[in-house]
């Protein structure tokens, strides 16, 4: 289990991460969400031991993370961390050997991964000759080549098209099923919502949301109901418990105080002659973020 316990990091007088705590069990995919400058990369660097913590502790299976366990960790950095003058094969051999792997093992694993990510033809090409998307694939391959027990992915989907996002997602899920501890960051909420069960949302280094994603959503009082029918905006606004009504071309987006309002609202709508839609939507992370911070995540 990876445990981040009351970790704080100061750069001089600047507070980068404030009292961050979370834990990730084997087989879990954990999301670290936050806009640029929230403290995600700093957190990862502290986990990897690249940065010293000001306070707190970080352990893997109860032991501090040092160079004796880094062979079991895979790390994908936010920016490309490939030595562009090397070929794909040289790069993977280089990083694989630094992970303590034998040459034969690296080469067999490399062939398998290159095929899976559909980039076998680039094996002897120099990194600098590859497209951004393919470079990201190679970077991902170097991160997982040692079949890590702890996989840290800092913005893994950056620069990828939806097809490749799906490819990465499948691989990440596959690794979690094998028991890897996976922690990844993104500034895109939809990526975290894709397959994270647990998450932490950071803002200026502070934790503003934390825990199981489903529970966070169910605990969120405010809901949205999508209605399509022969009623007017004013009629909906008059209903008890309705906070706001947004009129869209084909439907009304009705924000309500809590789930108890759904029943009374449904009673009102069912009296109408033509009703073609009544959907109670879960709140998006962005809705929750707005409520917590008073500002939109995607601003």
């Amino acid at each position, binding site marked *: 289990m990876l445990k981040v316990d009351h970790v704080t990091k100061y750069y001089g007088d600047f507070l980068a991460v404030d009292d961050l705590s979370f834990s990730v069990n084997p087989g879990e995919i954990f999301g670290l969400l936050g806009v640029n400058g929230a403290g995600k990369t700093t957190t990862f660097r502290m986990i*990897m031991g*690249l940065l010293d913590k000001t306070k707190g502790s970080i352990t893997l299976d109860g032991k501090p993370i040092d*160079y004796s366990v880094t062979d079991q960790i895979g*790390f994908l950095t936010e920016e490309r*961390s490939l030595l562009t*003058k090397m070929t794909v094969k040289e790069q993977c051999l*280089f990083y694989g*050997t*630094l*992970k303590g792997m034998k040459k034969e093992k690296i080469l067999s694993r490399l062939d398998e991964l290159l095929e899976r990510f559909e980039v076998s033809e680039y094996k002897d090409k120099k990194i600098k000759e590859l497209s951004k998307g393919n470079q990201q694939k190679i970077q991902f391959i170097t991160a997982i080549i040692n079949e890590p027990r702890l996989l840290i992915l800092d913005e893994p989907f950056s620069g990828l098209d939806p097809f490749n996002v799906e490819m990465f997602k499948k691989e990440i899920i596959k690794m979690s099923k094998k028991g890897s501890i996976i922690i990844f960051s993104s500034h895109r909420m939809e990526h975290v919502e894709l397959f994270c069960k647990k998450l932490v949302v950071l803002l200026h280094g502070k934790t503003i949301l934390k825990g199981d994603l489903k529970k966070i959503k169910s605990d969120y009082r405010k809901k949205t109901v999508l209605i399509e029918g022969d009623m007017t905006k004013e009629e909906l606004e008059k209903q008890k418990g309705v906070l706001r009504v947004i009129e869209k071309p084909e439907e009304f987006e009705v924000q309500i105080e809590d789930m108890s309002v759904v029943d009374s609202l449904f009673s009102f709508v069912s009296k109408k002659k033509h009703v073609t839609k009544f959907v109670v939507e879960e709140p998006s992370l962005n809705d929750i973020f707005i409520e917590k911070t008073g500002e939109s995540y995607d601003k």
Partner: protein
Amino acid sequence: MTSKLWYLTSVSLKRKIKTKWFVIANVLLALLLIGLFNIDTVIQLFGGDFNEKKPMYLVDETNGVSEFFIEALNQTEYNIRGTESSYEVTNYTKGLEEAKKEALENSKILVLHFTYDENHLLKTTILSKGTIDTLPYQILSSSIQTTKVNLALKESSIDIEELNRIESPATIERVILDDNTKGDEESAQMIMSTIFPFVIMPIFMLTMFLVQMIGAEVNDEKSTRGMEIIISNVSPKTHFFSKILSGNLFVFIQAGLLFLYTSIAYFTKTLIGGSKIVGGVEEAVGDMVHQILNSGVGEQLIILLPLIILLIILTFVGYSLLAGILASMTTNTEDFQQLQSPIMMISLLGYFLAMMAGMFQGSIFIKICSYLPFVSAILSPSLLVLGHIGILDICISIILMMLINGILIRYGLRIYKVGILNYSSKNLWKKMFQALKEKS
């Protein structure tokens, strides 16, 4: 971690050596050195009118000087060029004015007009359409001087045996009583003129290679962010030492290759057996070895050689430590190039002081400078050969260099650890001084 150190070192070394540019640079170096040693053979290989004899008209109004001159000219040319005379000499009888006309029409013709002055001493006028090159002019003036001497000897009725006695050089034996001041001005200048191109210049060149190699590599890994992956697997200390090791190994390999090329060039020269060139590379090497072995300094060098080599190695290590630390602080190659300028200046200081050591013999300032870390490796060998310093001075230089290296490792590593993962030049010096205070 030790195996990772060697792995990083070998990868770093291969990245330098297994490049086409390394191969191209070394092929060019080898060809240039072999070419320089055999430049005469190369020139002859491409052909030219080397054997064509140039016409020389002697207008002799002295009645007999021309015979002495032809003999002197043949001897002088043989002594200097090692060949037969390159002139087709004609005793011209149509008069000076006619000879001038011919010389104006044919630029190859050289006219020598022999007369006596009012004191009945030989007077020679050399006439040519254009200018005369330095070497032919020296041969001519030397031949005329010899002619004048021979004429004077003949008029004084001195026979050949007496002439040989007069011309034979005086026997001079030099005995230096003080062992610490072996050598003399003449040999010192000779050694300085030969040690520079074959000892000081290579050290200077290799230092630049070393600094640039380490700087470029650290910057490459930093700018591509590959550093984060590397440092997440090996400690900054391991990474730092791998750079120092690979940099120094590269320099020693390059030095070995330079030595190999020089040896090949020298043996090629011996095999081909080209003609001797005044001031040629192979003559300079020969002179250097000859002077060192014969002046008595050679004996000192043999004793001190291990110490000098140790000092040079320690200095290379020092330069690589400095280059690594400075490179870690920079965020791109351009910044490092600016920072490496002071390192170049330190080397240049040693270079110029070594040059001046020959001019200001016994200078206390230069002697003190020879202890200075980084400068000592360039300056000390020269001062040692000149006899200005001894074992004790070299030992002091070694101890000081070791001390500096120790300080660089102890404190530089702290800067390196912070620097290699720092991508911003904002508050750079503040960050570095802060890093210095932290214990690693």
